[in-house]
């Protein structure tokens, strides 16, 4: 996924009920954490979320692979 200069990709995790686990639900591109929060909340509004969190993709560290986290299968890359 390409993004504008000055922007970072943020990964979004959410759960609908307290007893649910957080699940990865999507990604937004944003220039700062403030806008990442708004974009995440307004873009992924298909459910009434109990909790939604965002983190910059580059904050994630791969545990078992050499490639950067969240790398898609080549066929899925847009």
């Amino acid at each position, binding site marked *: 996924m390409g993004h*504008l200069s*000055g*922007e970072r990709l943020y990964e979004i995790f959410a759960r609908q009920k307290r007893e649910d686990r957080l699940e990865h639900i999507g990604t*937004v*591109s*944003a*220039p*700062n954490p*403030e*806008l990442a*929060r*708004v*974009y995440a*909340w*307004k*873009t992924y*509004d298909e459910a009434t979320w109990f909790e939604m969190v965002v983190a910059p993709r580059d904050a994630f560290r791969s545990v078992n692979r050499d490639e950067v986290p969240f790398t898609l299968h080549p066929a899925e890359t847009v």
Partner: protein
Amino acid sequence: MSSVRTDSFKSADQLSEPVREALAATLLSLADNKRILGMRYGEWILGAPTLESGIACSAMAQDEWGHGRILYATLKDFGLDAGVLEHERPSEEYLSSELLDSTIEEWPDLRALNLLFDAALSVQVEALSNSSYEPIHFKTRKLLEEERFHFEHGRGWALRLSETAAGREALEAAFRNAMGPSLRWFGRSEAGFGQLLEAAGVSAGDPDFLRQAWLDRVIPVLAEAGLEELAAEFEARSEIDWSGWNADRRRGGSGGSGGPDAETLARIRGDKNRSMLMD
């Protein structure tokens, strides 16, 4: 600020006539401003700098139209016909800000509406959230929850644009332009609609109190964005010009006697395809 409420009102007919009129005008002003603000956000669904900000504009447009619809419906309790309010008034009867009269051509000007004027409306709504006029209570909750994200969007974009000298300059010009009408919108310090509402416990503060609450909200963002000089001007309220002030419509300056332009009016009223609306 009245911290203890002695009376509460279950319906508008329990309010004294001057308070009833002042509250109806305040609710109508909020409804009209939100209806048109929603249209202004909506005009940027396509054309916003990024896909994400276009989606945010779309969501904020929906929020504002929803808030407008709820507020117009609230006015039924005041003997007003929501259908007439939404579809049949001429421009000069709209209680909307001069900032909203015509299409917003530049992104920084939309940022000013988002961070400054939208927040002014929210401060007024918040002041009604513990109102002695009880029917408004539960209607303010969802509205204010949604508005938190509008403010955060305004803040996020202020920080973003202020990263470059050119962006900061554009932002400063747009904010300065919106400052006067936003400061003025709360009303004059002397006796008027705001003081009546405060005295009856309908609104949590008089115009000066609400103006200060708004300043307390927006000034830290201006400072965060490196616009300290502008923040000082806001604090000094140096841009309040009461010439042309129309207290009933809460607008002033050269726009005091104006109103939404013809295209805006036709679209917010839904004129073009009204014939499609069949009973």
